[in-house]
């Protein structure tokens, strides 16, 4: 067993883990933060997306021991039922889900994704590498790592656009 210290949603946690433990399993099985979902467990669906040191990653494809001393934000850290994060509220307003299983990953991904646009990180949809411009095509491309089998995509895009302050496109 390896000792691991993480800061999860602002709280310092100390864990003793088998090195095989993924960050996803550490969050769900050891810290009982079950908001983060296990979908494919192979980095193909995005349901396990969390924000580590400000960046969205697939928590199923990384070991908890590799994140010693790092800051992890899960859906529970973004907002609570009484105090929703603007992205959570927008998903409710725009009905950006059906079954809801992919939703925590979609929301964590969307929050960090907007930061990536703000940081001028380009995407496959970026027309001119010199300058990133906001568009629905950008949102769709940048969210392609989060699969929604209920296909709530139009409403997910509407919710993200709302939070970004871009209104109706």
């Amino acid at each position, binding site marked *: 067993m*390896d000792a691991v210290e993480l800061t999860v949603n602002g709280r310092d946690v100390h864990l003793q883990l*088998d*090195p*095989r433990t*993924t960050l996803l399993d550490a969050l769900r099985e050891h810290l009982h933060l079950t908001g983060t979902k296990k979908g494919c*467990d*192979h*980095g193909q669906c*995005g349901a396990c*997306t969390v924000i580590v040191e400000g*960046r*969205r*990653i*697939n928590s199923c*494809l*990384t*070991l908890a*021991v*590799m994140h*010693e001393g790092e800051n992890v934000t899960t859906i529970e850290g973004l907002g609570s039922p009484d105090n929703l994060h603007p992205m959570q509220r927008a998903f409710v307003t725009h009905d950006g889900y059906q079954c809801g299983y992919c939703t925590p990953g979609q929301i964590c*991904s969307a929050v*960090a*994704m907007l930061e*990536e646009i703000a*940081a*001028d*990180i*380009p*995407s*496959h949809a*970026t027309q001119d*590498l*010199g300058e990133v411009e906001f568009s629905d095509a950008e949102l*769709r*491309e*940048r*969210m*392609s*790592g*989060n699969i929604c089998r209920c296909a709530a995509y139009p409403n997910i895009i509407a919710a993200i656009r709302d939070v970004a302050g871009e209104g109706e496109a």
Partner: protein
Amino acid sequence: MKPFTYSRAASVQEAAQTAASVQGARFIAGGTNLLDLMKLQIETPTHLIDVNHIGLNRIEATDEGGLRIGALVRNTDLAANEVVRRDYAVLSRALLAGASGQLRNKATTAGNLLQRTRCPYFYDTRMPCNKRKPGSGCAAMKGISRGLAIIGTSDACIAQHPSDMAVAMRLLDANVETVTADGTRRSIPIADFHLLPGDTPHVEHRLTPGELIAAVTLPPPIGGTQVYRKVRDRASYAFALVSVAAVFGEDGSARFAFGGIAPKPWRVDAADAAVGSGPKAVADAALAGAQPTAQNAFKQGLTARTLASLFRQKEARA
């Protein structure tokens, strides 16, 4: 996953020395491919050496006017780098065509070069695969081969190299800089770095056991119109059926490199030389000697059409 021990290296030297002294040790950086394969017990290291904290995460100018990209530079950061976007646009474009935002945030430059094939039979441990289990046979040749390689293959293996980034690196004549436990450094041209399958499809590159990639260097910028076109089954987040990286020079010369069609990033001098004769001639030169299966023969025509599309894109920009 099979049990393994874990250590975090503090320096390049420590990482290389641990790799040399611990039987069955592997380096881990982004982990997006290795951990996936470990879950399926296709990769079964006894020890993981975490190399994320050994200072190989810088992008810097070389004395020759090129660029030195640290092995641990994340795909996101490389694609977003100002110099890469301006002077090596085809590299930015190739990186951004690959994977998802989440994966690019973890995946590294060196790890991308070393990623394993996405052949479905390599992943399916119930099936024979000469790459996964040497001598067991190849289930792909008479199986679902639609996405697999059509050239550079052998009787033992038709697996494709999945990388987009490596195709652009090949186009740009990158060099892979490595270091070993005794401190020996060497530079391997990317053309020589990946190996064709032949009789040993499980041997995929020239690295010796424990040899660590420290950086990838790019020669000085070559200018021109740089484009990357990836054709795939989905608009995003899918591996290439065919991809083409190209640089069209102002003097009418051009370079082409191809992904999705071969066991390594594919480049043929005769294809570059055929630019004046048009996209069909370039495709014919690039694919001379191709041995597709009935299921993936369409990639030949698709390569020609992808090239035609790039020629039109170049014309539109001129």
